[in-house]
Every structure is written in structure tokens, then in C-alpha cells.
């Protein structure tokens, strides 16, 4: 067999770059996550360096797949696979029961119906607007002068969420500033922001067709208020993996190992 014993998935997103290394059984050997910053190429180099130093392996031991919006800049990869397929495979590896996956990343949100073979059967992505993505929350956190980590817990304190439109991040920002001006509490505004985003992603999910159990991944899955409102809108419990940002990279690594077996 000419295959290599390890697989690496590199998920180059707009906000963060993620790397996962797995062995031939699909067990995770090393992971790394860092901001993509201005140079995706150097983020990729750093992630690889970290995976190699943690595992003690070299690129000669690994087959590498690039995924995410920056997938084409991963020169070392032998192929690229879209994040839609990678997230499905990654989630399926962690929890094979999941039938609907909602992944909310920095610049897009996707809803994927996962087939029993672990691959996507249907999917929808947000349209050109960033109103249903992590970027929306980042902008709102900045306006409310709270950290991203504090935004969700702040929203959960609200008893009466404000109404914030979800059509455009820029317009929603002016709306939030207006709300601040009219004296609404930061908690109510933060809750309104999460509710607005959850309702946008809820309708995207309904377009694909809600099937349970539902998994949520991507950086936004860490936000408790988002999970709370989305769960309420979809009337279903949500499963979230331990490190929800890594599922795309994990899926890519798993695909690399499967390719390895057939090569």
C-alpha cells in the first residue's frame, strides 16, 4: 500500500484556520485553531507546524486536504473538498445520528441535511448578506462594547428582547445604535440580536427541512444565547460537539484517510 498513515484536514475560514490530524482509525492525534488574520497562507503554515510538533509527524506521513473558503491556497493539499461535505463527514464521525447540521461560521451559515452515509443530501447557505453569520455577532458585540464571550451570557439575562431586523448587518448596527439611544438595556438589545440571527438561521433550516437530531457547529455554536433561541425556534434539542469549530477540518482529515485506504 502506497498510502500514508495519517490524514490532515485544514479548514481555512474567514475568521479562523483549523487543523485536525487523525490516524488510520480516524482517532484524533492533534488539533490546532488560530485566527486567519491577513495572511491565510501563514495561518496555514502555523497550523501545520503546530500539528507536526504536537504529533511528532512530518508532511511525509500525512495526506492533506484543504477545505473552507481558503481551501485553494493550501498548496500542500493533494485535493480540496468543500466545507459542506467536510462538515457532514466530520459530524457524522462524532455523532452518526445527526440528520441536520447547522454550521454557523464567520462569514457564512449553512444548513446541511446529512444522509445515512454521512454525506450531504441537500444544503442551503445564507445569501450574500452576513446577517446570519458570526460576523453579525462580532459587529453587535463591538457596538454594545462587550466581548464576544460575554455577548451570549448578557443576552440570556433579558426578559424582553428588542426587535432587531435581520436583513442587513450594517442596517442592524444602526438599529442597535438607535436602541441604545432610546434607552433599551444592553441585555434586551443583545437578546434581540441573537433572536434575529436565530430566526434567520431557523428559516434557512426550515427551507432544507427540519430533521432531528440536529447538530450545531462553527464558532457561533459556542454562544449559549444563540443555541437557546435557535432551539426554541426549531422546537428541538441541539447537539454541539466539544470543539464545534473543528468539525470541518475533522471531516477533511477523515476523507483523506478514507482516500488513503483506497489508494
Amino acid at each position, binding site marked *: 500500500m502506497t498510502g500514508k498513515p495519517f490524514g490532515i484536514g485544514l479548514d481555512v475560514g474567514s475568521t479562523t484556520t483549523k487543523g485536525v490530524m487523525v490516524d488510520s482509525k480516524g482517532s484524533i492525534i492533534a488539533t490546532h485553531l488560530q485566527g486567519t488574520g491577513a495572511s491565510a497562507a501563514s495561518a496555514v503554515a502555523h497550523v501545520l507546524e503546530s500539528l507536526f510538533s504536537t504529533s511528532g509527524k512530518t508532511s511525509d506521513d500525512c495526506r492533506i486536504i484543504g477545505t473552507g473558503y481558503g481551501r485553494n491556497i493550501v498548496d500542500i493539499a493533494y485535493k480540496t473538498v468543500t466545507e*459542506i461535505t467536510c462538515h457532514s463527514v466530520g459530524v457524522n464521525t462524532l455523532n452518526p445520528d445527526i440528520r441536520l447540521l447547522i454550521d454557523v461560521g464567520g462569514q457564512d451559515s449553512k444548513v446541511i441535511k446529512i444522509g445515512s452515509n454521512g454525506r450531504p*443530501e441537500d444544503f442551503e447557505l445564507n445569501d*450574500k448578506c452576513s446577517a446570519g453569520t458570526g460576523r453579525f455577532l462580532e459587529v453587535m458585540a463591538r457596538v454594545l462594547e462587550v466581548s464576544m464571550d460575554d455577548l451570549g451570557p448578557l443576552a440570556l439575562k433579558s426578559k424582553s428582547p428588542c426587535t432587531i431586523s435581520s436583513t442587513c448587518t450594517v442596517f442592524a448596527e444602526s438599529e442597535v445604535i438607535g436602541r441604545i439611544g432610546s434607552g433599551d438595556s444592553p441585555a434586551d438589545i443583545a437578546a434581540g440580536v441573537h433572536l434575529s440571527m436565530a430566526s434567520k438561521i431557523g428559516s434557512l433550516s426550515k427551507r432544507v427541512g427540519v430533521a432531528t437530531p440536529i447538530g450545531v457547529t462553527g464558532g457561533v455554536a459556542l454562544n449559549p444565547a444563540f443555541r437557546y433561541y435557535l432551539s426554541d425556534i426549531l422546537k428541538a434539542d441541539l447537539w454541539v460537539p466539544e470543539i464545534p469549530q473543528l468539525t470541518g477540518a475533522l471531516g477533511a482529515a477523515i476523507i483523506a484517510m478514507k482516500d488513503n485506504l483506497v489508494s
Partner: protein
Amino acid sequence: MNDEKPYRKVETQALLQQIAFRHGMEAMAASEEGTLAWVSSGFPVEIPVAMNVFPTYPEQAGAIIGATKIGPEVCGFAEDLGYSQELCSYARASIGSTDRPDDVAMGALPKPQALLGCNNICGTILKWYDANSEQTGAPVFLLDTPPLEAEQKPHHRAYVKQGLERLIEFLAKTFNTTLEEDRFREVSDLSSRAIKLWTQSLKACQNKPSPLNCADRFLTMAPVVSSRGMEHCTEFYEVLLAEVEDRVKQGIGAIREEKIRLLWDNIPPWFILRFFNQLAAQGVVFPADTYTHAWSGAVEGTDTDSLLDGIADIYSNVYLNKNLDAKVDKMCQLIKDFDLDGFVMFSVRSCKRYSLGQLVSKEIVTERTGVPGVVIEGDMVDSRLFNEAQIQTRVDALLEMFV
């Protein structure tokens, strides 16, 4: 080297340049002689052609403006006049190029003496041609073909036929001409023959490998849009069909290695036809699309009265004048007849009539045919509305479903 490309160029395409050049020259001559009409793509041109009125097409000019990658600039001319960016980019390209013809390398049309619009393709045409009328001073004739819910009812056909009779009066008065039955029959016959030949070429794509890809058809459809009822148009489709049949006989495909067969829905992004050639490198061919299959009705009839009946029928029943059910039926039928693995729906920002309902029809088509599809968003002329990275991800993800 052409041989190394993942797709094979259709030889007959070389004739297109000659036809386009000839059409342009004839349009200019007609404009000088006072016999030029600007015409919408779904207009029954057999009537003006039979009455010696030469038709030329703002929509086709829009496609040329798009293909020559000056769409944003020319649309911008219309935006400078106050037209919204939300307005159809064919309309903006038309209004913009009419306003500043000297700043448009290719695609500005010679001055018309009449504007002939039919709302079987969209409602925008009404106001768009009104704007063109203000710019050029040419009068507008509107042929009203109310949308069809199901089969065309007799009263619907009678109404459209009355419109055709009014058209004949309008042309007679505006151009001081008459409709001679023999000539009308001759033009209708030429038009029918061209459409039948074209339809045969389209049908030949049911073969595996498909002899034509999307981009081939989008280019070779030009004469059937612009020159129906003219001798050289029929000749062109004879040559094309011969090449297509030869490919089928020899088992030559439009692309070198056909692996995945997809349906295309909607107008293409004219500024990036290489999109289809890039997919050809991945083994993806589009043997059918709803856009070129919109031209399948042939005008039948033996005298003026029956020809008008035929025209009232054919031009009311065009793809875009039917309800969503008919569109879904057509897509399912194409997927079945052409044995397609999936479909790509292009949601065209400009063309609400074409794009409305795509999200729902996507679900229904998948339900009925069992094949997956994807909706991508963009525009046919205005490349500012086309995000290549987003589109690539969606299409790649669809292709990964076939692994």
C-alpha cells in the same frame, strides 16, 4: 492547443460571427431606410419580418454587452440617469447604451423607428421600452399575452389574436406597409423550419455523450432569437444539425470526458461563460437547459387567419409565460428525457420572472426526480452581482454529492 482543452468547440460557431456581422449591417441599413424595430425576444417577429420591418434585439445587445465584460459600465450609464441597480440589467444595458452609444464598443443598437414589446417574457419590458421610446422618439407597440394558468383558453387566444391584428395595423401605419399572405406564409415556414432544426439539435443532446454543452447552445441560439423567418437563419441550423448529428454518429461529446450530466435553469451569466468550460474539466456537461428550450414552438398555418391563430398559441405558451407548475413539469421532463444527474438553478437578480419560485421548485423537482440541485445567485450582465467564490463552493458541494 484546442485538443488539450476539456471541451470541443462547435465548428458551426464560426458562422455566428458572419451572421452577427450581417445582422448588424442590415440593422444599420434598415435604420437609415426607416424600417428598423427593436423587438423583445419573445415577440412574434414573423409578422414584422413579413411586412419588411427589420427586427433587432435589445436583450441580445445586453448579452453582447455582458459577454464583452462592459456590463457594469454600461448599466452604470443608466444608473447615472437615476435608474435603480435593482432594475433588470438587460434594461439598464439597453437604456445606458442608448444614452451613450459612442461609449459602448459593441452592443449599442442603431436608432429604431418602432419598439415592439411582448410581455410574455416579463413585465419590465413595458416601462423599459417606454424609456427607450423617450430616448429615441420611436413609438411603442405592446402585445399583451396574459400569463397562462394552465391550457390556453379560446378567449385567451382570441384576445392575443386581436392584439396581433392591432400589430398589423400599427406596422402598416407606422411603416406604410402591408401584410401579404404569401410572404407571411413563407416567413412563417422559414421560422418553423429553423425552430424545428434547432429543436432537433437540442434533442440530440439526449445522447451520451452530449454533442452540445450549455455554452454551445447559448451561443448558437442567437440566430433563432434574432433571425427567425429569414433564409440564412434556417441555413445556419441545417449546418449546425449536420455537425451535431455527425458528433452523435461518431460518439463525440461536447466535453472530452463526460461524467456528470446536469440541467441548467435560467439565463446564463454572459460575462463568465468559461464557468461551463471550467466545469467541463471536472467532467460536468449540461445536456439541457430551460433557457434554450424556451424556443420550441413552431408556427403552423395555411393562411393569414390560421397563421395568426398559431402565433397566438405559440407566443402565449412560451416558458416564462406559464405558471410555476408548468416550469417544474418542464424541468422534471428534461431531467428524465436527458437522463440528468442533478440541476443548477441560477437565481438571476435581474430576471424576477425567471427566478421567482426557484427555491420552492428546487424542492419539488428533487422530490419528483430524486436528483439533487443547487441554487446559485448572480446576474446575467451585471458582474458586480456575481460572487465567484460563493458560487464555486455551492456547485462543488453539489458535485461532491455524486461521488
